């Protein structure tokens, strides 16, 4: 898959997954890599950026075994951001679809 495409969509993907359900790092990474390959370790810098810019907040929850996990959840600002990104993404893909269809109908 084209790296630039992935790059552009990663923030939206991360926010969408967390919107559905709070995530800890490993679970989030697994959810993404089921559908596309990424360097898993670099999801954490993105998560930290989203926390610092106020889109996500964190809390710790003890796991049944092993160390307690750091969970990420959407803030109000994050919820607004994901809606906005989703809207923009749809407009973008509609535009691309249009050109694909047009080229096929020739």
């Amino acid at each position, binding site marked *: 898959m084209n790296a630039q495409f992935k790059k552009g969509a990663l923030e939206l993907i991360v926010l969408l997954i967390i919107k559905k359900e709070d995530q800890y790092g*490993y679970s989030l990474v697994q959810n993404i890599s089921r559908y596309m390959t990424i*360097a898993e*370790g670099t999801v*954490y*810098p993105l998560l930290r950026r989203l926390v610092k810019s106020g889109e996500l907040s964190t809390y710790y929850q003890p796991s049944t075994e*092993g160390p307690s996990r750091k969970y990420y959840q959407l803030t109000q600002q994050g919820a607004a951001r994901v809606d906005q990104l989703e809207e923009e993404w749809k407009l973008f893909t509609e535009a691309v679809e249009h050109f694909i269809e047009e080229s096929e109908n020739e």
Partner: protein
Amino acid sequence: MNKNDYLKELKRHLKHMNKEEKEDILNEYDTHFYSGQQEGKSESEVCKELGNPKVIGKELTATFSVENAHQKVSLMNISSAIVAVMGLSLLNFFIVTIPAFLSILLVLTFIIFTLASLVAPLMLLIKGIMDGFHSIILYDIFMTGLMFGVGLVLAVVTYYLIKWLFYLTMKYLKWNISIVKGSVQS
């Protein structure tokens, strides 16, 4: 590469941040290893999936430095942030170095002109002491006043210029981090 090597290498590239921040980051990667092993992956498999610790460490450092400079504004913090972002990749190096150099030049020029204009009355005073005050004509006083006035205006302009450049620098550095390809290469 095993877990310890990985975490050590990662730690080596975490700079300019306090101990808690470092611990927090390393803990998260440590937990990641734990979860991976729970699923039956070996340490070296997890290392491979995570990606190059040097690249990740640099990205974390850049992210932290820029945020830190934004919150605790100081020349030191801003320089650290610029250096950290420059180190991300060769591309970042070039697209940061040139604007940074030009910005510094611009700010320095404004500061020098401001100071030069503001010391005009002092120069007049020195001239008076050296050559005797009778040598000062009305024209000198008029010009000095004018220069001082220009200096005051320049001071305000310089102040806003620096503020605006700071804001722009922060935005530019953040954008630089966001274009790093690291997070999708695998």
